[in-house]
Every structure is written in C-alpha cells, then in structure tokens.
C-alpha cells in the first residue's frame, strides 16, 4: 500500500485549508456558531464553487469523482477550523447514501444540486432514541407523522432523507423540510458548531416520486454512507486534535511563569509530545484507511479499517482536547479561548455514527467469535 499523496490531493487539501484558515478563523467561526445558528452560508457558497460539496460524487452528476483520500484530507481541515457548514451531513452522508442506491435516475435528479452545494440534504443519524415515524398509505403515496428529535443541519438543509417502514417494507423517502406539516425547532446545543434541530412531521404527504429506493437497497446504502462518514468524521477529529496541539504549543511558547516560558518545562513538553504522538498515529490510521477504502475492500476489511480510524482518532481527540484546556491553565476554561469549543465538539462526535466502543465490539465479533468466521 502506497501512502504517498498525489500533487492533486495536496492541492485540494491546501486550497480548502487556506480558504478555511481565512473564512473560518476563530472569530468568523464563532460568529457563525453563535450568531447565525451554526451555519455560514457565505462559506458554504464558496465551498460549493470549489467543488467541495461533491468530492466523491460521480462527475456525471457534477461531482469531482474523487476518492476517500480526498475526503479525509478535506475533512481534517473542517475539523481543524470547526467550520460551520453541513458538509459531513449533505456532501458526505446524504450524497454517499444517494449515490450508493445505484439508481441512475435518482442520482441524476438529486445529486447535481447537492454536489454544487445549491441544495443541502440531511438525514437522520439516530442521535437520540425515538419512536419510528407512523406511515399511512395515501392516494398519491404516503402520509408521515411523528417526531425526529435530533436531526443535524436541519435548519440549513432543504431536504431530509428518511427511511420508513411500510407494510414490512423499507422505503427511503426524501421530504422537503418546508413542506406542509413539517416543523423545525433548533435545539440548544453545547456544540454550537454542529447545529441540530427537532423535526416534527404532522400529516406530511409524500409522493411516490419522493421514494428513492425500497427493500434491502435502503439499508445497504445507508450503512455504506454511515461507514464512509465514520472515517471522514475520524479525520475531522484528527483536525480537532491538531488545532488543539497547535494552540497549546503557541500558548506555552508565549506564557511566562517562574521567569521562563512554559514551553521550557519538561513535563509540559512531554505532554505536548504525547499529543503529537496520538494525533499523528491517528492521522496515519485515517490516511491508511482512506487509501485502502479507495481500493474497494470487502466488508470485513471495511469494518476493520473503520474501527481503526474511529478508535485512534477518538483517542487523539479526547486526549488533545483535554490537554489543551489543562495546559492553557486558567484561560483554558474560559469562553474567550478556543479549546472548549474543540472539547465539546470532540465529545459530541463520539456519539455520531456509532461510538468507538460500538465499532470495536462489532470488529471484535468478527475477530473473535467462532460464528463470525
């Protein structure tokens, strides 16, 4: 396996990195997070122009037709800047889910506006437990009722992908978030960089044409999308860890105590070194997983790779966000300094798309249990 990056891969990472370093610096990111409901529409438009909303989507549907490696390189920059855009939700999760249905007509209809960033699509990732939606057949299709308590990016998005169960069959439907009977309410969220809303459906009508897939295809596509997104999320966590390390090293270099910079104290240096160890190993894991996923490995291998990326990146984000607060000292737990934003984001990310422990248990089943052999 060759882990060298191509010139194009570096370029896409650098260009997104540079864009975000300016457009999503601490002040801009805080403005978007706290004053604009966690959505930076201007930034999203710029990303759309760069093609970043369709990195791994087919060129035929306006995507860039690139691979997982490009996704994770870009994701690291998003994590590093806590960019307030629904990229993971729309470009990665919804986009991959739709593309994985293997239905050209569906792809042709839904992917181009998604890949350009014009349309933001989100989906239910099951953050909080809830009752399934009630579905009734109606003349032109179905009628949906119920509450989805925690849908990411639902305020910024225009459409929502929902799997539903009708007469024992799985359907994947897409619903406009401003359709009659849809009500959205933004939830209070300690991780303000990744907004989440409650979506309430009251007698919402869904046409036959809004059904994108049926049967086993639905869960296969959703699983595929969640698994890919889990690796992408891991890369975001690496970005989170990296920014925490950079902030900390910079702080220690300038803060003087006992007559010398804190950066000269060996115990603090060792802690920074440990942060770098954790995050570089996680970065290696994410890059390795991405590269191998690009080759289309079998299901068992995908499970192992996803578990690797998710486990190592979670370890790194957990340690680095903790140490960033600690090593900043008193200012480390103030609102004004950034470490707490990363700390909250890292914690929130643990519950997304399967916790690291859940991935490990699934992998352990494959590795250890006779029945799984």
């Amino acid at each position, binding site marked *: 396996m060759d882990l060298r990056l191509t010139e194009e891969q570096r370029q896409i990472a650098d260009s997104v990195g540079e864009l975000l370093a300016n457009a999503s610096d601490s002040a801009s990111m805080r403005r978007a997070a706290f004053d604009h409901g966690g959505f930076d529409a201007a930034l999203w438009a710029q990303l759309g122009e760069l093609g970043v909303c369709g990195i791994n989507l087919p060129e035929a549907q306006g995507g860039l037709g690139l691979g997982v490696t490009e996704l994770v390189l870009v994701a690291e920059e998003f994590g590093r800047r806590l960019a307030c855009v629904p990229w993971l939700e729309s470009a990665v999760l919804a986009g991959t889910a739709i593309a994985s249905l293997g239905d050209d007509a569906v792809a042709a209809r839904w992917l181009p506006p998604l890949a350009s960033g014009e349309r933001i699509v989100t989906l239910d990732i099951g953050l909080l437990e809830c009752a399934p939606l009630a579905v009734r057949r109606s003349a032109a299709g179905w009628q949906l009722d119920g509450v989805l308590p925690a849908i990411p990016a639902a305020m910024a998005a225009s459409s929502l992908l929902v799997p539903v169960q009708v007469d024992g069959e799985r359907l994947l439907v897409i619903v406009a978030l401003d359709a009659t009977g849809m009500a959205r309410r933004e939830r209070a969220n300690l991780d303000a960089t990744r907004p989440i809303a409650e979506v309430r459906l009251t007698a919402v009508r869904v046409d036959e044409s809004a059904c994108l897939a049926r049967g086993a295809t639905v869960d296969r596509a959703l699983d595929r999308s969640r698994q890919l997104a889990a690796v992408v999320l891991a890369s975001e966590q690496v970005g989170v860890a990296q920014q925490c390390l950079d902030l900390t090293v910079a702080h220690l270099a300038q803060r003087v105590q006992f007559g010398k910079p804190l950066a000269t104290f060996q115990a603090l240096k060792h802690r920074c070194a440990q942060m770098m160890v954790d995050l570089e190993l996680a970065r290696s894991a994410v890059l390795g997983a991405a590269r191998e996923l690009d080759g289309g490995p079998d299901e068992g291998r995908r499970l192992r790779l996803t578990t690797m990326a998710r486990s190592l990146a979670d370890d790194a984000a957990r340690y680095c966000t903790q140490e960033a607060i600690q090593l900043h000292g*008193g200012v480390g737990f103030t609102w004004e300094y950034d470490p707490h934003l990363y700390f909250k984001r890292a914690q929130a990310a643990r*519950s997304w798309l399967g916790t690291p422990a859940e991935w490990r248990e699934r992998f352990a089943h494959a590795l250890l249990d006779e029945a799984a052999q």
Partner: protein
Amino acid sequence: MTDRDHDAFRAEVRTWMQEHLRGEFAPLAGCGGLGDSRYDPKLAKRWEQELARGGWVGVGWPKEHGGRALPLSQQVVFHEEYVRAGGPGRLGHIGETLLAPTLMAFGTPPQQQRFLPGILAGTEYWAQGYSEPNAGSDLANVQTRARLEGDSWVIDGQKTWTSWAHESDWIFVVARCEAGSQRHRGLVMLLVPLRQPGVTIRPIRQITGDSEFNEVFFAGARTEASLHLGAPGEGWKVAMALLGFERGVSTLGQQAGFEREMECLVEVARRNGAARDPLMRQRIAHAAVALDALRCNALRVLAQGDEAEGAPVTREAYIAKYVWSNWRRDFGRLAADVLGAAATLPDDDPLAQKLRQVWLFSRSDTIYAGTNEIQLNLIAERALGMPR
C-alpha cells in the same frame, strides 16, 4: 468522642436541616454553588444568616471568637450531614474557612473584633485576591501595587479568578508594597472593601457559558492604613498560611456533594440503559469506589489533624487536591459518555442537566487552586524530597 456521641450529633444536624431547608429556602436544596446555574446568591445569603442563627457558622472556631469549638470529628459530621440533607454551596465559605483562621492567627484584636462577627452572622462576605493574569501558577509574581498615602493604602493592579466577587463586600489582596522588591519579598496582605469607585469587577465567561469567576481591577482603590494583615513586607507568609487553611474539614462536605453527583449518574445510567453496558458498568463501579477512596483519604488527613496542630503536611494531605480534582474531571467525562448524544443536547431532565454542568465545570477543577502541574511539583519536591 465516641461513635454514639456522633450519632446523636448527626441526628441533631439532620433534624435542623430538615426543619430549616424548606419554605423560602426550598429552591436552594441540592444546589451545588459555584458552577450551578440554579444557585441564587441573594437567597444563599439569607440562608447563611439562617445557618448563623442556628449556630452552624464557625462550628470549629474557638469559643472566644464566638465559635462552638467542636472537635474535628464533629465538624466532619456537620459537613457530611449538611450536604446529605441537600445543603447548598456555602457563600460564606471564603470568609469562614479561609479569612477567619488567618485573622485569628495574624490579625490584631481590633481587626478580629471588626470582621469576625460579620462572618459569623452571615452579613459580610469575602472574596480572595491572589491570582493575577501573569501570576497564575507562579503566585509570587505579584504585580498589584499598594502604597501608603496618609491614612490609606492605595491599590493599583488586577486580580483574577475571583469567585463571587460581585456578591462580596470585602476582598483580601496580596500586593507589592515595597517598590522594586522581588517575588516573595516586599508583599502585604490587605483587607479591601469591594464596593468603592476604585474597584471594577468584570465577570469572566467560562466553558459553561456562565460566569463563576471574575477579574477585579484596582485603580487607586483605597483601604484604611490599619487594614494590613500581618506586617507589611511579610504578606507572603500570611498568604501561604491562609492557603494552608484551605485543605480543611470542608472537603468532607465537598465529598458528600460528589456523592450526590454519583447518585445522579447512577440514576441516569439506569434510565437510559447505559447501566447495561459492560464497559460503562466497569467505569461506573470504578468511579464509585474511587470516590469512596477519596473519602478515606480525607478522613486520613483529618485523623492527623485531630492529633497534631502544626505537624508537617502528611503524604495523604499532599495528594488531596490532586486526587479529588482528577477524580471529578474523569467523572465529568464519564457523565458525558453516560449521557451519550444528550451530553451536548440539553433537555428538561434536571439530573441530566446536573451531569452536563459537572462535565464542563469539572474542567476547571484541575486548574484552579493549584493546577495539576503545580500539585505534582509540590508532591515530588516536598513529599518525595526530589530536588528542584
């Protein structure tokens, strides 16, 4: 003092608490104090006065200063039962347990007569002025200046991480009174009224979104010339003695507060199913017994204290701050993991809300009042005798 005597005293505290922590004070029940957004400081002051009327302020103070001179073991019982009965965080804590013992040790009789009664009655509140922006872990790097002008000390400078400054009447301030002096030398400990034009208080917004701490700015602030504690120039000695009083009996009250948080976590884990997860079970069980161990450690510290005043600091005392603060930080993280996605998504459940607050607020525990790093330095150098 036999266990039987303790049982009677325990019952007395319990009964008193049941009879008084009700009515207007009911909203305070179970409030944690610092870091708890439900805590109403105005009501908390009336509660302090209620406690004072009950004779529960200064329970360990000597009788000549109006205290009850209870032995340490009974003070422990009081603090434990106080918290178990839902007693709220003590707004008078800094005056009662930090300043008062220092006043008794270093204050002049007029100073004692002037300040101790207000503390004992719950009518005057104190804040502390130690840390500065450039003197965090390096406490001796004091830049706040004080000079005598006629019958007043005039103070210029800035203190930070001052809890409850906006609710307090007085602040004790370590300031440099000898121009050009270095580090531990040339300092004075002053008692300064907070409500005066020369003092500005600015809240510091924390990780929780609330403001539990403040910056206090002194611009020509004044206090009477007689209000230095100990001799001018010897402020460091006084300041260190004062910090020494911090490792006291009230840790048992804090412990009881942690036990409430633990119960809260167990309840949430049972409700949301985390209690069925084998890994969570291990972590919860470990946290619960480690908390018991903190209590054992605190009791070990107190067992020494009852015996020998002024004895050298014991090894169990050296680790006390480090172990409780790191326990609570880990507990906070466990609480967030038990909550799962609900850790960052507030809802109406008061138990979950309490756990969220602990999760975030506990991040400051390993930093204030001596960071982890300072604690480890002290342990290595003083308890283990390793060279600087």
